[in-house]
């Protein structure tokens, strides 16, 4: 941590991708997933990234989530050049600065709603132990899951699981929440509820959201849409 890029500090961009390239070997073929991506996000933006399947959306999200590294170019988040972080520092960075919402929720089925949301806090040194319980309870209230606080997650509906995932993503007060098609597995009514929860969190907590989606409802409600095609940003 603490690898601060002075040039980036000078700019307004809170998240910046500069000339990011990423390719994969897929059998005999080399797939160019990202071809020189330049992208900037500002604080509290609610941004959707759109693109066809295989266009590079997920790879881009992985770069921002510090779970993948570019072959070339730079990824700067809140002034930190993530390529210069060690694996341990990346883990710490993810825990303290980022939140993840997965398409298939990825909550731990054998744990309760409370425990799932508490998970990131257990290894977060920035939030005092005495505040953790209240923080979890506040988020459970925010996402409307108070009656299910101690229910096992495998007893919840898809929408409820995604609310747990949103609460878990926000519990450490991250600077950036990344979501990979967060409403893809939900029915339209639940999708609307989840969108409302995300918008509420964005408005109330000022959290920057960046997510991939195909959902028209969601697209209509974002501040900004980024389109990607064949590994390049087109708008």
């Amino acid at each position, binding site marked *: 941590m603490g690898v601060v890029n002075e040039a980036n500090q000078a700019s307004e961009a809170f998240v910046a991708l500069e000339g990011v390239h990423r390719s994969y070997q897929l059998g005999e073929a080399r797939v160019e997933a990202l071809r020189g991506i330049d992208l900037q996000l500002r604080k509290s933006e609610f941004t959707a990234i759109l693109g066809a399947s295989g266009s590079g959306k997920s790879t881009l999200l992985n770069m921002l989530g510090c779970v993948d590294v570019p072959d070339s170019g730079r990824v700067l988040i809140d002034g930190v050049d993530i390529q210069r972080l060690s694996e341990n520092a990346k883990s710490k960075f993810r825990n303290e600065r980022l939140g993840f919402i997965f398409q298939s929720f*990825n909550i731990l089925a054998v744990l309760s709603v409370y425990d799932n949301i508490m998970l990131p806090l257990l290894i977060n040194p920035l939030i005092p132990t005495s505040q953790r319980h209240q923080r979890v309870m506040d988020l459970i209230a925010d996402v409307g899951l108070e009656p299910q606080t101690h229910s096992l997650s495998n007893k919840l509906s898809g929408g409820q699981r995604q609310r747990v995932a949103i609460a878990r993503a926000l519990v450490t007060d991250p600077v950036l929440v990344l979501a990979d098609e967060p409403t893809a597995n939900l029915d339209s009514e639940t999708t609307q509820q989840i969108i409302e929860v995300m918008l509420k969190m964005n408005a109330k907590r000022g959290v920057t959201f960046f997510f991939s989606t195909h959902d028209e409802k969601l697209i209509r409600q974002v501040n900004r849409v980024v389109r990607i095609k064949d590994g390049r940003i087109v708008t």
Partner: protein
Amino acid sequence: MILAKFGLRNFWLQRQRNLFALTAIAVGVTGLIGIGGYIDRWEHTLRTDSIYLRGQGMVSIYRKNGWLMNRSQPKKFTLTRADQEQIYAIVQKLPGVERVGSVLNGSGLISNGCQSQPFEIRGYDLDVDQWMRERPIVRQWCGKLLQFVRGRSFALTSPGPLVGIATGLASLIGKSAVKTPSTHTEPLTSLSEYCRGPGAAQRIAEDPNVQLMAMTASGHFNAADADIAHVFRTGSKVNEDTQLTAPLSLVQDLLQTDRVSSIAIYLEDYRRSDQVAQLLRQSLAQARLDYDVHVWNERKLSPIYTGLMNFLHAMALFCALLIGSVVVLAVVNLTTMNVLQRSRELGTLKALGYGSGALLQIFCVEAAALGVLGCLVGTVMAKALAVGISHAGIQFTPPGSSVAQDFLVAPDMATIAMVVAFVLSLVLASATGTAWSLGRRSCLDLLTHNA
């Protein structure tokens, strides 16, 4: 705490899969405790036999090279009265000494009046013999050897010169009778009539009297009459045809000496044998006395004990390797399945900021639950097996033994603890090793893995 809860709940969720590994662990623990219990049984029996029934004590003191030479050159290699007094004075100051006794070994010919056989005799203090026979440990582990085939102890048969005779030797000289209060010997009219007349064999058999002849310490021949107080089993086929026991005074009379071959020290705790022997050596050296001090489990003093224990331990090690391999394979297989099936969960935890160490902790909790439960079930099964076998009354005669023994499995707490520690370590090491090698994949790999 949450990670522990996560591990335990996953353990419960995967109970069907865990059952196979749990069974392997439980059966492995049962097998190892069973083998350990069998070894413990022989360890107790042979140790008790070496220390008490063979009259060696935990620590024994000989003249320099006396252990080897006391029979062939008794004048030079046995302990004089002065030696004995010096040694007793030093031994009294040693810690943890329960009893001290003297032993005199000799050899010669035993006769029924008509024919002779060579014998080896061990003479010992009667009060030590009586004390030894009443000790619970001797009754528990050497009960069969403690029981006389016929007759009673010297203390209960007195007065008169008495010997105990091994079954094989008694058979060789045709003796079956032992001295009783009603025993009376017909006056011998003619040796020829006694040995060869009608009913000679029965007459010899019913006469408990024997004649002993030996070379004295000073190199002359001496003979003594004695009555057979009891017939006993030595436990070893090798000794069955030659062994006699007698009160120390009889052997000293026979060998015309007041010397003894060795002084045996009985301790309250046999585990302090080496420590006491060391102290004794130091005390003897300080007093400028040059004697040999031996500990009961030296190979030359207890060849059967050391030989059999080495064999059993080698066998146990082989079995432990086999059983350990099965346990490791079962746990590696289980952990591999768990890690692969739960890759997405692990990826999620990594995305939330957990490092490989934390993930390892989850599998450690699961492995510990599996190991503890498997060891618990295995220990209960082993205990039940031990009780069942002990009550089944199965008897067998070990190779080289002259006595049929009960087939017993008697695991000590130390053995159980060692087996549990061994198996738990294997389970934890194999689970964490597997989880470590599979779980250190990148977060992206884990998140995108399709189980």
